[in-house]
């Protein structure tokens, strides 16, 4: 059999040219005192990484972002896994295709427009407020806008299709005969769920969870627009280094710290996932 090179080379060469090399340049920037443009003097330094330790609010915000990532991922799994199961196993025929498409389509709308639509829905005097007051006879003020929950709602909405899609792909592959066999051997519903369905769905759900958790930790657009005063996270702090000031070195260093922490979380989670398989 041939080696892995012909299969792997095209994708990884492409990634190298378009992502890894540019990111290495960023890696270099994270180690200099100033960006070498316009005759600025620069030296190699670890100060940018030391800055993270020197100011405790960076770690505090990073923790806050990890928390956000965990909550959003958890909610996506909780909401998405049952949907994936229903789609993959209980609905048949034309309905399934239609529903499958309906799940994916919101994903194709523009992220920014989606977030702004949530803003219109959540704010005081907005769609939710108006609808609730149209139904309920007494006066209620519904204003979820500019809160931590608004950020969570917006992010769950943006990333939920990832979990449904990957969960669907895994669950759809489970052999019905396995379940039938277990049932005929007298396995309870719960046992089938824990011993067959969940272990076999896990690779898909785990892939979905990773695709949610990883970008959410670094997100900055949804927190900024929906979070208001509660919208300061690690991602927004990184963004500031590129837009508010010309401090790419610090911004790059913070990004790589983010990346290292995210990879560490994934590495820590890997054995748990593997054991349950």
């Amino acid at each position, binding site marked *: 059999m041939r080696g892995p090179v012909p299969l*792997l080379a095209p994708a990884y060469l492409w990634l190298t040219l378009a992502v890894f*090399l540019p990111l290495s340049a960023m890696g270099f920037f994270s180690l200099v005192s100033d960006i070498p443009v316009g005759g600025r003097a620069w030296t190699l330094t670890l100060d940018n990484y030391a800055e993270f330790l020197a100011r405790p609010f960076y770690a505090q915000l990073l923790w806050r972002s990890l928390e956000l990532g965990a909550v959003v991922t958890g909610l996506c799994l909780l909401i998405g896994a049952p*949907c994936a199961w229903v789609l993959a196993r209980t609905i048949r025929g034309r309905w399934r295709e239609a529903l499958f498409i309906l799940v994916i389509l919101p994903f194709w*709308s*523009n992220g920014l*427009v989606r977030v702004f639509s949530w803003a219109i829905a959540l704010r005081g005097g907005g769609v939710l407020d108006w609808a609730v007051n149209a139904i309920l006879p007494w006066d209620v003020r519904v204003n979820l806008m500019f809160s931590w929950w608004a950020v969570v709602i917006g992010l769950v909405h943006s990333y939920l299709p990832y979990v449904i899609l990957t969960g669907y792909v895994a669950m759809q592959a*489970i052999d019905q005969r396995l379940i039938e066999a277990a049932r005929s051997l007298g396995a309870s519903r719960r046992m089938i769920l824990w011993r067959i369905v969940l272990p076999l769905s896990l690779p898909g759900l785990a892939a979905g969870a990773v695709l949610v958790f990883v970008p959410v930790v670094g997100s900055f657009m949804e927190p900024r627009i929906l979070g208001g005063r509660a919208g300061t996270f690690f991602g927004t702090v990184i*963004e500031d280094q590129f837009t508010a000031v010309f401090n790419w070195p610090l911004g790059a260093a913070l990004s790589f710290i983010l990346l290292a922490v995210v990879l560490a979380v994934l590495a820590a989670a890997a054995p748990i996932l593997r054991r349950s398989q």
Partner: protein
Amino acid sequence: MTAVLNAIGRGWLILTLAFLYLPILVMAAMSFNASPFYRLPVEFSTRWYAALMGNAALKQAAWNSVWIALVTTAIATALGTAAAIGLHRHRFPGRALLQAALYPPIAIPWLITGTAMLVFFYFLGIPRGSPAVVVGHVALAIPYVVIVVGARLKGFDPALEEAARSLGARPWQVAAWVTLPYLAPAVIAAALFAFAVSFDQFVISYFLAAPGDTTLPVEIYAAIRKGFTPEVNAVSTIVIGLSMALMLLVARLARFGEVR
């Protein structure tokens, strides 16, 4: 009992769909609202659609987005699927590293990756324009494809390929008749991811597209900063409506929900 559970499951799915469509419906409703500040109740008007018709830049950008997303999807799905198979089938030193290398493009905020690409492409002398945008989009989409297809491969029984080979199938026959049919749902899901990543990708296009010839997210971003949002809602509503019609049509023809 099963019937009850199924009913609950369906109810859950319907509630979830309601959640997913709430902002889409808001967007569509506001595209017909005369008030530029989204005042309620909605005062019906098609003025934003009329405004859109005269906005050549927005229409051109929408078209750019579609074709760039299609090209990206084709390339990223092919390269990513191959890489997923390669990672699954072979054990070699550095494999774990290659797998870990899929995460930086997802984990590092796109703003930083985009800035890095801009600077790097500038050093290489690659000019701004659609080809540069496609290069960037494909790179961002590949990790999604590898992860999604890789998840499906974990449940793949290598004995199947083994059996096909022992029966005299050539490698391409094994791939075409055994491996790919099994992977098909994942490959389709991955392609949908790739399309979504490209179609919604803002930062890369923002930095790499040629002036005056940008993509929809870039136009939308610029417009939202300045307050022409109802027009943006109108174009988004049209895009969603068209994709829905197109997808349902494709689904009727290809029946991909049923692929086994």
